[in-house]
């Protein structure tokens, strides 16, 4: 199973976007990079965008190609790739629809947030199979940063390890 590694604060931004646009769909761009060695994909930057559909916004969303192009350029400037997109399903499960499948490409993540009655029900992420027949679910890894005290301790440990390693290399 593929993995989408999402910082907890990014997950909160997506969920807030989905709630504030309810009962209409929201959408946005996930920028990041592959982690390699089967580690999945790390999302490093989010770009919420307006739903550019003019009608049926309760069950449809659209990003014009010019918007996608601008997001791709922004990602490249940051040394990242567009690794996926998110959207919401108001009062509908977080499972991709047939309409989603017809408009998807393999190789990227489609994160879907289900909003029921104005509150987030759940979020699931999907990747289209190469044969376009169906989506496969990927695991969402909700990455919560370590508390500041732990980060400082980890940095001190790392500094000690580097210093020791330098000492060991001395003739």
């Amino acid at each position: 199973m593929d993995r989408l590694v999402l910082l907890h604060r990014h997950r909160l931004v997506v969920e807030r976007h989905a709630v504030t646009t309810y009962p209409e769909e929201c959408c946005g761009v996930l920028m990041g990079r592959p982690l390699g060695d089967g580690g999945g994909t790390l999302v490093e930057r989010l770009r919420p965008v307006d739903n550019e559909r003019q009608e049926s916004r309760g069950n449809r969303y659209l990003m014009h190609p010019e918007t996608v192009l601008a997001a791709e350029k922004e990602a490249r400037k940051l040394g990242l790739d567009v690794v996926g997109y998110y959207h919401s399903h108001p009062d509908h499960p977080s499972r991709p629809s047939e309409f989603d499948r017809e408009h998807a490409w393999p190789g990227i993540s489609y994160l879907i947030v289900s909003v029921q009655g104005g509150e987030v029900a759940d979020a699931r992420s999907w990747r289209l199979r190469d044969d376009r027949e169906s989506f496969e679910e990927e695991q969402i890894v909700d990455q919560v940063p370590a508390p500041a005290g732990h980060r400082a301790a980890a940095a001190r440990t790392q500094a000690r390890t580097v210093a020791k390693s330098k000492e060991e290399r001395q003739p």
Partner: protein
Amino acid sequence: MSVTVQIPTPLRRFTGDSGEVVVEGDTVDAALADLMRRHPKLQPHLLGDDGKVRSFVNVFVNDDNIRYAEGGATRVASGDTVSIIPSIAGGAGGEDRA
């Protein structure tokens, strides 16, 4: 007529990880046909069952969307860059709502 086609990141797995492919053709349709001859696995993701470019797949010649030019008949010149850019669309199931 050699033009460079920029391959979007998710589709590079079908071009041997190449981000750019040089193809021959004097129109967008001809350039895309040559691209799919060279990399046949791209075809189902660019064309629908009817053989037409999928509705969410957009083609730009340099910075211009061919939808506002002559579509697939838009002419390309040597050195032009053709970019394949998706519209991102989808949503919960069911028919369009009023």
